[in-house]
């Protein structure tokens, strides 16, 4: 493995732990809430309806449904992992004085962060 790949391999191993932690949060949250009438929940997903995340979270917070909230935390952590990977990769290229590729990686990171905002607008 060349030097760059060796360092990125370390980032990859960090991601593996990230997936384990996120997965654990999602699993724990799911097990805490699966005892509720879940069969009902599936029927409510037969028809699509836009319902922004902040309203969903407010509702679950009001009902003290901690299980679902922990699951959401796990989901958020999981979605953030590729962003962390790109951030660390950009920093890696910068350290290796590969400024053009570092700029490209940070550009990708910027686009990823902005893409989250689309969910609020659309």
């Amino acid at each position, binding site marked *: 493995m060349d030097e760059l790949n060796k360092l990125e391999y370390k980032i990859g191993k960090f991601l593996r732990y990230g997936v384990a932690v996120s997965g654990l949060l999602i699993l724990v949250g799911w097990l805490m809430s699966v005892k509720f009438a*879940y069969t009902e929940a599936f029927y409510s997903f037969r028809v699509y309806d836009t319902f922004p995340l902040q309203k969903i979270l407010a509702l679950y917070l009001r009902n003290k449904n901690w299980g679902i909230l922990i699951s959401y935390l796990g989901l958020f952590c999981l979605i953030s992992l590729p962003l962390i990977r790109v951030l660390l990769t950009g920093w890696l290229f910068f350290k290796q004085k590969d400024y053009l590729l570092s700029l*490209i990686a940070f550009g990708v990171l910027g686009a990823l962060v902005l893409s989250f905002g689309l969910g609020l607008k*659309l």
Partner: protein
Amino acid sequence: MLPILLLLISIFAGFLGALLGLGGGLIVVPALTLIFGVDIRYAIAASLISIIATSSGAAASFLKDNLTNLRLAVLLEVGTVAGAIVGFVISSQINTTALYFLFGGLLLFSAVMMLRQKNDARAEMDHPWSKKLKLSGNFIDHHTQLEVAYNVAQVPLGLAAMFFAGILSALLGIGSGIFKVLAMDRAMKLPMKVSSATSNFMIGVTASASAGAYLLRGDIRPEIAAPVSIGIIIGSFVGGKVMPKMPAEIIRKIFVVVLVIVSIQMIMKGFQNG
């Protein structure tokens, strides 16, 4: 109990995906819509979560053996992320029927791709962008133990293909691995092993480009995404372990038949929905 059944089906999807080198999305989305009657938009959003999990979890192993071209992956991610953003915007405008038809078409295309002969045509010349960014690489072929050096051709065409792959990823909740490998193999003339490893490495970033937006829009629901992602993680872990011992070719042929049947069902669901 439906959530447990969903977990079991997701484990199976992850297992099959690992065995056949396919993303779980191709199995999860039809399963959620056809078996559980979930609206395709929730299914697509949940599928993206499982794709991020499997790609991020396996990133380290893709980097082994020097097969993943990290520099190329970073450049091509510009295309896939831009495409995924556009794909999310399109998903807000497109109607559900069109999504079913597109997905059905994708399954048919995947079935054809699984049957095709894989070429290993090589680039004779390095594209100027490849020279500038030092994208060409090398790896040790396990069979011959010889070092294989390769160039990267037609970088702009590869970027354009990645843009298209990104759109489909966001629109249909898939990793678009098939399109990425096709682009790297046919357009950029990379060795198949490099195309495959680099594509798998990029999939998580492509999926997260739209997953964040879907999450904030409220389309990713833990009631669905939790058992799906946990199941896919478990299934792909087990599938990866047993893969060398399984008769992959026979399973591949059976899966092609299943893909065709399911694609017809998805298209029919589109007609029912319309």
